[in-house]
């Protein structure tokens, strides 16, 4: 039985043990370093990512990596951890929020580690630019993707319509959508979702017109008229019956499984190329991939290679050197590349691209081929997003599209209100 004396003796021994343990000599003996890794995504992504973590642990004795997967609450948890001073060492970001975190000082600049811990010689040209904010590389792009148009091949076969291609213009797209919807002839099924609330689609539309979504100075790079034209296009298409109703569209949370194409309300979707696998996963019929509609043959395509996701190192990380090594391993190590394949998009390392290509399934091959096929047409990567960009997207751009769809405001009013919001919300 534990009496008082025993208790005291035990406590004393524990205390002594702790004191000894904190002495440098003993620390060197038990040199286990623990790093936390945080991302969001499907179980498939978790399996692949943890696979790489295991490989890294095996290659680096005494290193332990704890993976944490976030869901819908990813950003909440991340900011809470940061505010609480226990941010994960390495965390995942995406282009829409990347600069927001970088500018708030939450991500460690990687410049000191480049070409040392992080090898860059095999990276595809321009990759580091995709992780640069204010002249510093603050996140490592993990993959490349691009905007794309997915379509259900069966629906087009049944309708006897030619599927969209690289030469399909927005006008063609509207005509095809109206015809296709008629040919499908089912209640609550349209050719496409109402894409007016997808900021990336609007960005592409703007790029085709020689405009930017955000200027390098961090202001809106478009005018009220541009926004009005965008809302008008989709409003007209909705009225003609070519795209989903407001009610269906309002249910889309911009996740793959809430997209009208995934819920069976549409047979086309404007999305990111690396999502084809996920879309195919919820579709019974074979899907195909093409580029977004164009303005005309001579205008810019509106396409650019964009980073699928980034790894960032927390500015508070106690093991920045080790974290940098992990990132290097993640993007440059052949074994890691094999484990990851193209789940996050096409690898940024060209050797890895070539290495994984033969082992890919047919759907993944389609996405890699698509990325290669647009090589001659891609434009420059746009400037990083300003502070408040995610707020602008979630609190103004998307609700505005819904307001137009529900008939609460006209496209013209929506354009003006959007500009007013942009002025209020966006900061450098």
């Amino acid at each position: 039985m534990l009496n008082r004396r025993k208790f005291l003796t035990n406590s004393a021994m524990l205390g002594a043990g702790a004191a000894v343990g904190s002495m440098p000599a003993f620390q060197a003996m038990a040199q286990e370093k623990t790093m936390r890794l945080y991302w969001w995504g499907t179980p498939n992504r978790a399996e692949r990512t943890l696979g790489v973590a295991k490989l890294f642990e095996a290659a680096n004795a005494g290193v332990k990596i704890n993976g944490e997967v976030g869901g819908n609450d990813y950003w909440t948890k991340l900011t809470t951890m940061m505010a609480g001073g226990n941010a994960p060492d390495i965390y995942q970001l995406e282009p829409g929020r990347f600069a927001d975190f970088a500018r708030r000082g939450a991500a460690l600049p990687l410049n000191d580690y480049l070409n040392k811990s992080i090898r860059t010689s095999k990276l595809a040209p321009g990759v580091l630019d995709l992780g640069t904010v204010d002249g510093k590389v603050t996140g490592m792009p993990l993959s490349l993707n691009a905007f794309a148009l997915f379509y259900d091949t069966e629906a087009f076969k049944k309708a006897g319509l030619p599927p969209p291609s690289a030469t399909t213009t927005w006008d063609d797209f509207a005509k095809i959508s109206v015809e296709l919807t008629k040919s499908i002839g089912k209640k609550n099924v349209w050719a496409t979702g109402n894409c007016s609330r997808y900021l990336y689609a609007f960005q592409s539309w703007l790029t085709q017109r020689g405009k930017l979504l955000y200027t390098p100075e961090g202001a809106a790079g478009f005018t009220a008229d541009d926004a009005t034209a965008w809302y008008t296009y989709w409003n007209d298409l909705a009225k003609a019956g070519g795209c989903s109703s407001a009610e269906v569209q309002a249910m889309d949370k911009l996740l793959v499984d809430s997209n009208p194409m995934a819920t069976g309300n549409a047979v086309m979707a404007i999305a990111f190329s690396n999502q084809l696998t996920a879309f195919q996963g919820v579709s019974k019929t074979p899907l195909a991939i093409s580029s977004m509609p164009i303005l005309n043959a001579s205008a810019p395509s509106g396409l650019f290679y964009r980073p699928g996701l980034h790894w960032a190192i927390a500015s508070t990380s106690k093991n920045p050197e080790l974290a940098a090594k992990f990132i290097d391993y993640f993007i440059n190590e052949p074994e890691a590349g094999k484990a990851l394949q193209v789940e996050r998009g096409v690898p940024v390392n060209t050797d890895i691209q070539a290495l994984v290509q033969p082992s890919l399934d047919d759907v993944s091959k389609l996405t890699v081929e698509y990325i290669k096929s647009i090589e001659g047409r891609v434009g420059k990567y746009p400037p990083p997003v300003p502070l408040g960009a995610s707020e602008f997207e979630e609190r103004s751009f998307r609700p505005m599209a819904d307001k137009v769809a529900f008939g609460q405001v006209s496209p013209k009013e929506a354009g003006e209100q959007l500009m007013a919001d942009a002025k209020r919300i966006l900061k450098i």
Partner: protein
Amino acid sequence: MASMGDTSPDVGRFARLQDQLAGYGFLAPWLIGFFVLTLGPAVASFYLSLTDYSGLNAPHWVGAENYLRIATDDDRFWTAMNVTFTFVLLSVPLKLLFALGVAVALNKGLKGLSLFRAIFYLPSLVGGSVAIAVLWRQVFSGDGLLNQALNMLFGYEGPSWISNPSTSIYTLVLLAVWQFGSSMIIFLAGLRQIPKDMYEAASLDGASPARQFFKITLPLLTPVIFFNAVIITIDAFKAFTSAFIISDGTGGPIDSTLFYTLYLYQEAFTNFRFGYASALAWVLVVIIAFFTAMSFLSARYWVHYDD
């Protein structure tokens, strides 16, 4: 030399002190919880409400700026107020009426009373949960259960109640009213306390059941009605989960379900304005305190205590 008389108060004091210490010892779990988990954060949040704290950078003192912005320059604050007051004004009276109605019906000496009581209480146990909010989404979506039923019974093609900005708030009101169980239990207990002989005397005098209800049941039940009203009102102001789950944290469609607490949450955790969100929280405290105080002030005119 000190006499016995001199020392005994000291001994008594010591014993009392020991008693008090023991008392505080037993209170410690609660006291620690209150100071560390409730009062501490509350004080911290008041300080943060006077700063520009972003969650990532150190807070800077900005004085009353956050409060000024709430009052003068924040459209979404007023949207959130509008949604919240709509919700409170609809859900509180409906829930009270419903709970009272069911309690009165159950009090009629129904067979299997305890079973019905349990069944009616069930939604209150599970209603606040994430699973029910998800279920709600299924029931009230475009091709959900409700519309299928409407279509089968009346051939009526209902809208998607959840994703239509003009109806979405009512689905949340309904969800709140559905959780009437705990108020009902309290009403039932109150009804049991009303002396039977009053009803006997009234019926001897020829008072109809309706008259008995309005002249005996309601007046004697006012303390319980008052208690329930205060609790339900505070709960309604603080409602969060249902809107958060049903709109996936957006308060959409078009901010039609933007509860005050949801707006506060968005400002803090998605827009990185912890300072501003803290100010919003304190404004909510003041609003709830105001309405609670008003209820207490009004109580003296309509609540009858049995003394």
